[in-house]
């Protein structure tokens, strides 16, 4: 009797399993909706212009391969990308993200550019519980709000705070290192954050901060700080100026005849106009824009070729990170096996893949563990100097006086 009962139960289970497997799968959507707002106009317009092709090329490449495989529907589904112009205005960016959520019902957001824009839109992602991938901001503070849906495969202040000294120690033999440091700290949140980290980390790596000066953005006369640094014998200059301030700074350094052996300016020299505006005075300046078209990772050559065909130059520094955001999101959707935002969020958090910016994983706070390439202006071009295995030119050190360039 017992044996019959057991046989019956097994048969029933088998039948229900067969019926379940024959049940029709839910109808697949025509496309997987993703989108974001970008500053195509306004103060961050030049950044948005670099990022837009990155997002678009990545979507086109993924769709050319049939789209993203979603297990729930057992098929590949193409991505549909919607991008809006937020005019570099956080209020407008918020409005665009609400539209993407309510109208397009996106399963993932792609971020804007600039810390203030990301801070506003990451909050909306958190409210709407939509995974958010953003680059072109290095402010670490945004990641310290407890947000669960914000992910940034882009370097943050704590990476470059000690990173600059690690770079110098690796590239320059002891005894030749520019150990006397001047830090010109812009009175902005990012300036304070990064300036503080540079100051805090200097002694740990054998450097001494001889000048730490604060200045307000758009200060026209920077000569007081420059002369103090010159007088103190500073050999390294570290600063986070905006493009106009950075240009003014280098011009005034040239006029006052102060050429530190090593200068790292974050943000100001990222644009292509740096070399055109400053000529040889702009050379030898190191920068950390987040990426360089010279890195040896899969897909970079194809991305450069496409960019070259459309814009007449290899991919810009923010194009690669933007491209990587779509790669990460598509990969996460595939691993999630469903278009459920929560599952996609968890899959993004567990990312461990190689993209056009190199290997990417995420920390608990959503900051990316990514390669932080260091670039240097040489002969009017941005050359990748570190990591050396990716370098497009050797690191030029020490910088000669301005009149000898």
């Amino acid at each position, binding site marked *: 009797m017992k044996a019959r009962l057991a046989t019956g139960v097994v048969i029933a289970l088998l039948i229900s399993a067969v019926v379940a497997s024959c049940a029709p799968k839910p109808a697949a959507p025509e496309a997987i909706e993703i989108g974001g707002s970008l500053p*195509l*106009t306004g103060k961050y317009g030049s950044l948005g212009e670099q990022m837009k092709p990155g997002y678009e090329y990545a979507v086109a490449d993924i769709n050319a391969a049939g789209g993203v495989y979603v297990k729930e529907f057992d098929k590949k589904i193409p991505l549909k990308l919607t*991008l*809006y*112009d937020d*005019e570099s*205005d*956080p*209020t*407008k960016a*918020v*409005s*665009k993200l*609400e*539209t993407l*959520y*309510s*109208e397009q019902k996106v399963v993932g957001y792609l971020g804007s550019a600039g*810390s*203030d824009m990301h*801070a*506003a839109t*990451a*909050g*909306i992602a*958190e*409210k*709407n519980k939509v995974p958010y991938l953003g680059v072109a901001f290095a*402010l670490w*503070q*945004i990641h310290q*709000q*407890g*947000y*669960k849906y914000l992910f940034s495969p882009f370097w943050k202040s704590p990476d470059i705070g000690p990173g600059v000294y690690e770079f110098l120690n690796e590239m320059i033999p002891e005894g030749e290192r520019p150990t006397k440091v001047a830090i010109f700290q812009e*009175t*902005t*949140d990012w*300036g*304070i954050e990064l300036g503080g980290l540079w100051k805090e980390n200097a002694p740990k790596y054998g450097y001494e901060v001889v000048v730490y000066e604060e200045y*307000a*953005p758009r200060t026209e006369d920077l000569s007081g700080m420059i002369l103090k640094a010159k007088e103190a014998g500073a050999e390294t200059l570290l600063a986070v100026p905006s493009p106009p301030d950075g240009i003014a700074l280098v011009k005034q350094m040239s006029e006052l005849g102060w050429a530190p052996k090593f200068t790292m300016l974050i943000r100001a020299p990222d644009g292509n106009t740096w070399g055109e505006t400053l000529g040889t005075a702009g050379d030898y300046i190191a920068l950390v824009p987040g990426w360089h078209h010279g890195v040896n990772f899969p897909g970079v050559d194809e991305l450069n070729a496409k960019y070259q065909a459309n814009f007449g130059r290899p991919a810009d520094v923010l194009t690669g990170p933007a491209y990587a955001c779509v790669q990460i999101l598509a990969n996460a959707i595939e691993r999630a096996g469903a278009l459920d935002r929560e599952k996609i969020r968890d899959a993004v958090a567990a990312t461990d893949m190689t993209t056009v910016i190199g290997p990417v994983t995420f920390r608990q706070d959503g900051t990316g563990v990514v390669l932080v390439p260091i670039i240097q202006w040489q002969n009017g071009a941005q050359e990748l100097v570190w990591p050396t295995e990716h370098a497009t030119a050797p690191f030029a050190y020490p910088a000669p006086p301005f009149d000898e360039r």
Partner: protein
Amino acid sequence: MSRKQVILIAFLIVILAFLTFLPVVIKKDSTINLSILILLFITLASSWNILGGYAGQANLGHAAFFGLGTLATRLLWMSGRPLLPSLLAGGGVAVAFALLVGIPAFKLRGVYFAIGTLALAQILNVTVGNVLPVISALPAHYLAAYRLAPRYYLFLALAVLTTGTAYVLVNSRLGLGMMAVREEEAAAESLGISALQHKLLALGTSAFFAGLAGGAFAYYHVSYYYRFPFGPVWTFDSMMMAYIGGTGTIVGPIIGAVFYVIVKEVLALKLVEVHLTVFGVLFIIVVLFLPGGLVEAWEKMRTLAHRSRLKGFRKTF
């Protein structure tokens, strides 16, 4: 009560009922968010209109009042104070600042007053940027309880309150005094109207509602730099809306705000690459052909319709 007044009141009741039930009927966050922006700008444009449109003082520093309201409310609210007192404090700070600068500022006339107010707002903008250079972001636990509907009702209440106050004010003896000052200050003074008192009243009222709007913005916006609400764009947007709708009228700023926000948003969504160019051309057309704003267009259409009716009447008889 005339038939016209009854129709007007009925119309207002229908509009208010529609706006009250909007978040209940339409649950889309995008629509509620857009409505919030419209209501915010109705409040800002209407409050600018009290001083700029009715008292004739071209204030280019409206963002200062808005920014101060935002700053005071955000700091108080984020430090755990209840919302309503924080909002009122925002409005109060804006009024205090307005009256403090108003007395010296009103020694300036015309374009000098405009430049003076712009300079004051810019000084505040830079100062706040230097003193508070950080982002004010709502932490995750605030966002967990964040809902758009209560924000919407707050902005709706403010827009109604501002418009209602403007209506009562301009139809009062004080309002008539303000308009007399706008038309000819010397003549108004000669009739015993204190120009300074009336201008200060207009400035204080205008600043109070701009400050309250700022407070509501502090409650609404998830994250921004403290200096962001002090930016000149808030002044110029409010002013443009008042001009597009029609300055010196009650409905002008409302029509202007609705037109400006909706048209700009639709263009931004439909014509991503060229939306600003198209909007700029539209704005130039309105300014060139309708210097009195969209309210003037409405009046012109009514006059034309009336004339054609008269023609028809004459032909019939």
